[in-house]
């Protein structure tokens, strides 16, 4: 991407024609410069990000209820999305048509392509994860969870699912119906997001209480597990410090460092190996509800839209939901020596 020349200014570019309601998920294709966004106005929109950072709206389709998750297939030919209409829909880029491939009994909150297979895993508030071969109407297999699924991520053959009861279950895709490890979240409050290391070996967990935990999947490596506080206002130990939820954790595809984005509107880059904060960015006008890196980590896309953290009263009809593309300078995201 040619955004390098803009790196100095930290000028983030706004994506054209952002959805009219909050953005629940963002996804970049792994093979091209297509960006998808799922929104509470039921739409899933797709743009192409050009070399200079500008965006061109390419396609759009709708769910019958708010769209909550989306992800591109590994080969970049299809976009899968899930929503509050309890349906999983697939958009084929070549045909430009959406089709429904999955169905749950409650809204779908997690959706991930299982690497190396033509299979999509969908997790729902109906307390199950179902694996779908996209050509079949019935799931290949269904796994029961201990509670509603809140977040799910995959890397290689690892699938990590976080549920409402603060339990985190790990599955090996060679045996997808059987969890190979179940643990209680290291964080005391509700899990908001889980994200696998892009370098493998573990995942990060974010909660509603401004805290992130780094967990290694292998019990042998559990010495390296740690957690830290983030996305808080005011002096750390002051009374009345506001504590915000961590809405998104995204690992850089190349460096293995990661970014967290919070309900406070801020996003920060971190290095888990040296346990350092790499860069803090200015707070945006509203909560950051979703964020992701592009395929080579040169762009960090984040959506500024209301995440309902303050309930109904915090919602404003006039708030302009935006999706911003931030050029990532290597200096900001590279791992740092302690």
């Amino acid at each position, binding site marked *: 991407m040619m955004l390098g020349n803009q790196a100095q200014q930290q000028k983030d570019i706004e994506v054209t024609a952002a959805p009219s309601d909050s953005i629940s998920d963002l996804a970049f294709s792994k093979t091209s410069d297509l960006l998808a966004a799922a929104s*509470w106005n039921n739409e899933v929109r797709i743009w192409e990000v050009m070399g200079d950072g500008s965006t061109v709206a390419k396609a759009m389709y709708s769910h019958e209820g708010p769209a909550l998750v989306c992800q591109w297939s590994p080969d970049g030919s299809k976009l899968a999305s899930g929503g509050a209409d309890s349906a999983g829909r697939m958009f084929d880029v070549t045909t430009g048509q959406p089709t429904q491939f999955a169905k749950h009994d409650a809204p779908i909150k997690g959706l991930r392509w299982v690497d190396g297979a033509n299979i999509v895993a969908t997790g729902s508030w109906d307390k199950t994860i179902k694996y779908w071969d996209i050509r079949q109407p019935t799931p290949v297999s269904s796994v029961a969870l201990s509670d509603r699924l809140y977040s799910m991520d995959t890397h290689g053959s690892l699938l990590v699912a976080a549920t409402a009861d603060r339990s985190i279950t790990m599955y090996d895709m060679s045996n997808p119906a059987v969890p190979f490890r179940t643990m209680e979240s290291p964080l005391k409050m509700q899990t908001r997001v889980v994200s696998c290391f892009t370098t493998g070996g573990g995942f990060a967990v974010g909660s509603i209480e401004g805290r992130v935990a780094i967990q290694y999947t292998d019990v042998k490596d559990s010495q390296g597990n740690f957690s830290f506080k983030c996305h808080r206002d005011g002096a750390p130990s002051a009374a009345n410090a506001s504590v915000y939820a961590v809405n998104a954790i995204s690992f850089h595809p190349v460096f293995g460092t990661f970014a967290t984005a919070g309900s406070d509107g801020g996003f920060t880059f971190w290095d888990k190996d040296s346990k350092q904060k790499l860069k803090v960015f200015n707070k945006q006008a509203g909560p950051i509800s979703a964020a992701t890196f592009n395929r080579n980590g040169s762009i960090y896309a984040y959506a500024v839209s209301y995440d309902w953290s303050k309930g109904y009263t*915090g919602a404003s009809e006039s708030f302009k939901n935006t999706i911003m593309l931030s050029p990532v300078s290597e200096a900001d995201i590279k791992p740092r020596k302690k």
Partner: protein
Amino acid sequence: MAKKNKKKVVRPWCWYCERDFEDEKVLISHQRAKHFKCNHCNKKLNTAGGMAVHVMQVHKETINTVPNAMPGRQSVDLEIYGMEGIPEADQIAYLAKQEDGDNNPASKRPKFDGGSASVEFSAEDLQNQLAQHKAMMAAAAAPAPAAAAPPPGMPTPPGFPMAPPVPGAPGAHPPNSGPYPGQFQYPGMPPAAASVMPAAYSQFYQPRPPQPFGMPPHPGMPQGGPPPQFPPYGQAPWPPHGPPPGAPHNMPPQHHPGFAPPRFMNGPPPPGYPLPPGMPPHMPYGAQGLPGGPPHPMHGPPGPMAQRPPMAASPHLPPGSGPLTPTGIPSSQMNHGLRQTSHITSSPDATTLAAAASTAVATSSASPAPSSAPVAPASTASPSAPPTGASAPADAAVNKTPLTNAAAKKESVLVYSNNDVSVEEVRAALERYRFKPKVESS
């Protein structure tokens, strides 16, 4: 079985700030980062003394207190490293505090001293209890069907013979008292309300296990009968999500005959009795005063009362709820006893319950708001907006707020504090976003 020694090893803790940690390594890195760090150059030293020396030599300044340390623990002279160097006296004091902490107020168990009426609950404790109770109730209420949702039916009894026992009850009517006079209000409750009880009652029981059922062990219990029966009510028989509303109906009848007589026979049980779970004074009220006879009338009062306790956060008494409010928790206790009797007469009316529930929700939205400042309005607002569909999670949100606030020791404000429901679930339940499946014969 008396478990003498602490079965758990004490976690390493920091002498300077009394925080505990997973292991010594973490403790040491905490100390280096928080207490032994130079303010000028951020150099992390190994001990307080080392830091003092560094600051003196490099920055030419003297410091005589350890940063981020509790008052009394700021000495630069004591050589503490990890857990080493902690003075014996402080170690003992800390361990003692841990012990106390284990027997936390919520369990009530140890606090119960059989015969003495020394249950003196401060307003704060009551509020905490109320908050916790509400939270538990809400947790129980949320999964339970709507019929069971109405705030736990106040034990009908209030109006009953309870009056006499009440005054006799352990003196703990402190801030909440006034209840006594208020309790007489109960009789005024519409009989229909009584039907609310049974289901509501079941609500009570689910969340309550830690508290109410402290009763059985309670030495003060004069009656042999009730104690054995309590546990079933409180714990085992009640599946976590409450047996379907029908269940409550089932249970009481069985227990009732056995239960009521012993319970109520005692008339005014000795002061100690009523408060087994450590409920505020009102407890005795319910426990004692219920003669087997009057059960019927009981149905009346509970109705409106039922609604009150859960809703009103202790500091705010909804008008007319009078004494009950602060005693939301006790009311549940009372209900327990009452429930038995009420079952004899009639089964709750589902519609009444539902109506009560919605009123409850509406009221609850209003009342807790003032109490817990920063977070409450936010989460309270969301319950008010969604229609009944969301009332269960909303109710949980509202009720959780006081608990979160009461429990949060750091006073930091969690912007989104509902630990049981995610923001998306709250939002997806709203009328505006709710998925309405197309009516297709599929």
